């Protein structure tokens, strides 16, 4: 029997010690709720299990993806796997006994430090589930710190439905209203936003790059507007973009949420690593786990989970969030990836996200029947493309060439979305060929 280590003799000795003849006698379950059926699952050898599961996984098509939309693929250096899969990391638990988990605690402390550097804010936690749940927690934090009045939050109208759907669940309990403010020419409509703002608003959210892939040009003005109305200003971004873009604290962000899985995490069907940072004054309202530096009895520096009185296992229904298990191992991977890249490598990777999509758009725009990018402005990784033919037909056509693209509803019509990173940039030629060969293109 796999992974059960007792020999027959040991098992007998243990049964004797507890005074029963059969382990089943230890189950204190009334007969009326005993399960006497079976699940119908056949046991497999390790080799058979691998073959079966891998056979199922192989049923997916082999495609080059230009998909983006909040989940981005960057090359993950081999050393990330080799180090993070060291079993002392991989098989460890949450650091409730810090004296024997200094290694993981230090790695998480270094992850927090990375996020602090990237955001410019004073405090970062050591992970959230994904960018959508991080935004949900930001809204709950805003609601707590502005508990005396605000009960509305403002998000841009291009916030993806998937993220909005998560936010709607997070805001349902405290009955916070989520409202959209307008965008104009693919970026925040600052005047439109001003018209939506009043003293009931507890938080204003804006993403850069935004859902259309555009780097927001005037977040200073958004921050000022939020500030003028006493609302928190929450910025959404990701760890690669923040390596290049102005730190959000510099234009007044109170909270930064987003995705850190762009480092260390390959495309694995939407797994996430949410990042969360905020100004120091909200420290005791932060959701999730925090690692702090302190000292041990010998006077040496040592790390520990800290401010646990915010957390569910101590504060129960008055906790700042219900988070227990988070994404610690992915934070470790992100930290290793960032350490491997170093500051120049991070900036170069981010700059490639600017030049890669710009170059692709230029080439797509040269094709008959295509207009790219739809919106002026500086793009990061992705852009919308207008097509003379129905965008869905173009996606189907590219699919036959082994390329996965998607359409998005934008400004009342269906548009093509294209995402270029270091992992598919060498396939842009194929994309151009496929688009150029689209029969009904013009």
């Amino acid at each position, binding site marked *: 029997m796999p992974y059960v280590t007792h020999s027959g003799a040991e*098992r007998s000795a243990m049964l004797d010690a507890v005074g029963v003849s059969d382990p089943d006698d230890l189950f204190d379950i009334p007969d009326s709720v005993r399960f006497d059926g079976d699940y119908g699952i056949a046991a497999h050898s390790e080799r058979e299990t691998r073959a079966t599961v891998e056979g199922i996984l192989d049923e997916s098509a082999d495609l080059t993806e230009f998909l983006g939309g909040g989940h981005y693929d960057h090359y993950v250096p081999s050393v990330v796997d080799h180090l993070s899969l060291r079993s002392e990391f991989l098989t*460890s638990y949450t650091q409730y006994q810090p004296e024997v988990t200094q290694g993981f605690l230090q790695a998480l402390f270094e992850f*927090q430090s990375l996020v602090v550097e990237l955001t410019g804010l004073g405090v970062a936690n050591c992970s959230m*589930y994904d960018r959508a749940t991080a935004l949900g927690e930001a809204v709950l934090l805003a609601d707590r710190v502005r508990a005396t009045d605000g009960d509305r939050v403002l998000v841009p109208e291009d916030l993806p439905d998937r993220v909005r759907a998560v936010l709607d669940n997070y805001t349902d309990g405290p009955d916070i209203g989520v409202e959209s403010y307008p965008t104009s020419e693919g970026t925040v409509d600052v005047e439109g936003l001003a018209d939506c703002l009043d003293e009931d608003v507890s938080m204003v959210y804006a993403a850069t790059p935004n859902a259309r892939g555009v780097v927001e040009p005037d977040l200073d003005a958004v921050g000022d507007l939020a500030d003028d109305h006493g609302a928190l200003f929450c910025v959404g971004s990701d760890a690669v973009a923040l390596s290049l873009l102005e730190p959000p604290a510099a234009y007044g962000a109170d909270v930064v949420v987003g995705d850190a899985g762009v480092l260390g995490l390959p495309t694995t069907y939407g797994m996430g690593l949410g990042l969360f940072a905020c100004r120091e004054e909200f420290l005791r309202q932060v959701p999730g786990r925090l690692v*702090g530096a302190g*000292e041990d009895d010998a006077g040496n520096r040592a790390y520990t989970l800290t401010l646990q009185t915010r957390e569910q296992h101590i504060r129960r229904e008055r906790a700042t969030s219900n988070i227990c298990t988070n994404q610690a191992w992915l934070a470790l991977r992100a930290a290793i990836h960032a350490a491997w890249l170093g500051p*120049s490598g991070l900036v170069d990777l981010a700059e490639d996200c*600017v030049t890669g999509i710009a170059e692709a758009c230029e080439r797509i725009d040269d094709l008959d029947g295509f207009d790219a990018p739809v919106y002026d402005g500086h793009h990061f990784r992705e852009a919308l493309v207008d097509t003379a033919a129905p965008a869905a037909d173009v996606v189907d056509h590219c699919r036959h060439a082994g390329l996965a693209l998607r359409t998005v509803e934008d400004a009342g019509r269906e548009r093509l979305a294209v995402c270029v990173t270091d992992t598919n940039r060498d396939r842009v030629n194929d994309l151009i060929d496929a688009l150029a060969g689209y029969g009904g293109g013009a």
Partner: protein
Amino acid sequence: MSQEGHERAAAESTGAETDAPHQQARWYAGDRYEPLLSEKSSETVTVESSLPDDLTREELELPDLAEPEVARHYTRLSQMNYGIDSGPIPLGSCTMKYNPSFTEDVAAHPGNRVHPLRADDDKQGILHLLYELQETLASIGGMDAVTLQPPAGAAGEFTGIQVAKAYHERQGEGSRSEVIVPESAHGTNFASAAMAGYDVVELPSNEDGRVEVDALAAAAGEDTALLMLTNPNTLGLFERDIEAIAEIVHDAGGLLYYDGANLNSLLGKARPGDMGFDIMHFNLHKTFATPHGGGGPGQGPIGVGADLAPFLPTPQVRETEGGYETYEPDHSIGRVHEFVGNWLVLVKAYAYILRHGDEGLERVSETAVLNANYLASRIEYEVPYGPFHHEFVASADEDAADVAKAMLDHGVHPPTTKWPEIVDEALMTEPTETESKATLDDLAAAFNAVAGMDPEALSETPSETTARRIDQAAAARSPRLSWHDL
């Protein structure tokens, strides 16, 4: 980093030089251990970009190290860390069992590298596995439908509560405002209920350590939305009155929620659906052995009865004539994660279940229960209540936190301490099925050696670990949360 600083510490001893087979490395460099990356190297680069200056940062300051130094840094950190492959972690309610290595290879298979926004036709492998796993879990839980979306157990709780709320609202019962939770429940139950906007009603335990049925009958009523229960409970006791409990809750119009944290003691023996539970979550990373990764990722699917299936998150997966497709349930609550949660945990859990099969899964719970009872019988601390399932709670004569620190010196990870609070100075212990008799004997020896220590010696532990005892109160008083604060 400079080469001068790496000397293995000569461990000071307080007399605990008993066998400590899982001792860790310590790396001294001056007055600290492995330096921070930022202390090894700090590089400020001037940022140059094709973007306009007003959109970009001026500079970025981070460590800049070559791969060999990065590799050594993290290798040292790993050596200063304790995992289940290092030794036992008998943390009650956490279910830290050995994780088979092969699931990592399954997770590394290229077929996992699929973008979530692909069309259904282009991700049939993913949808096929999701479908198989959701059907398998439904069978194990005795449930009618399962969603795989929630990324952790607590997220599963929140999802289940939102599903219950949507159901009550659709029934015209949206005024139900209370969730009943036993005092011994996991803290997440309370927090998840509060997060969903409910008032929490705490239910006392009876003298047996189980739900006080009369108190439940008094608490349940027209305001009751849900009773959240784990069975066996956190004292390791099966709630034998579960049918009466279910009847009281259902008669009041409420729903019964199963916290799946302790499901590993029921595999092959009982199913939450058969006990009357309407909603449950699974902790795939516990019951089905995914490495815990130092605190995640986890995965917390929920299962529901047929009446609640239309309220599950979107998307769900169903079988069609030619394959599999996603769909949105009629009254879906929407989403609790942008995509399907932690995909790799799903793959590993599915592989684990296939590897075991029916008989293997039943053997898992039988051995987990045998191991807990055997260990409970071997330790000298008082173990109130019983009979136990997969975990038990001992009561320390001294401060349970001190006991834990002293156990660290014996090269084992201590149990969960000071919780549940029903037991004084609780040592909540769950050895799991993957520990051998010899390891259980080591654990018992560690408990018993500590039980004989005088309080002063106890307070000076641990001395054999990477760090000596850490002053957590001081760390919280003046928080230093990044290398910028040092």
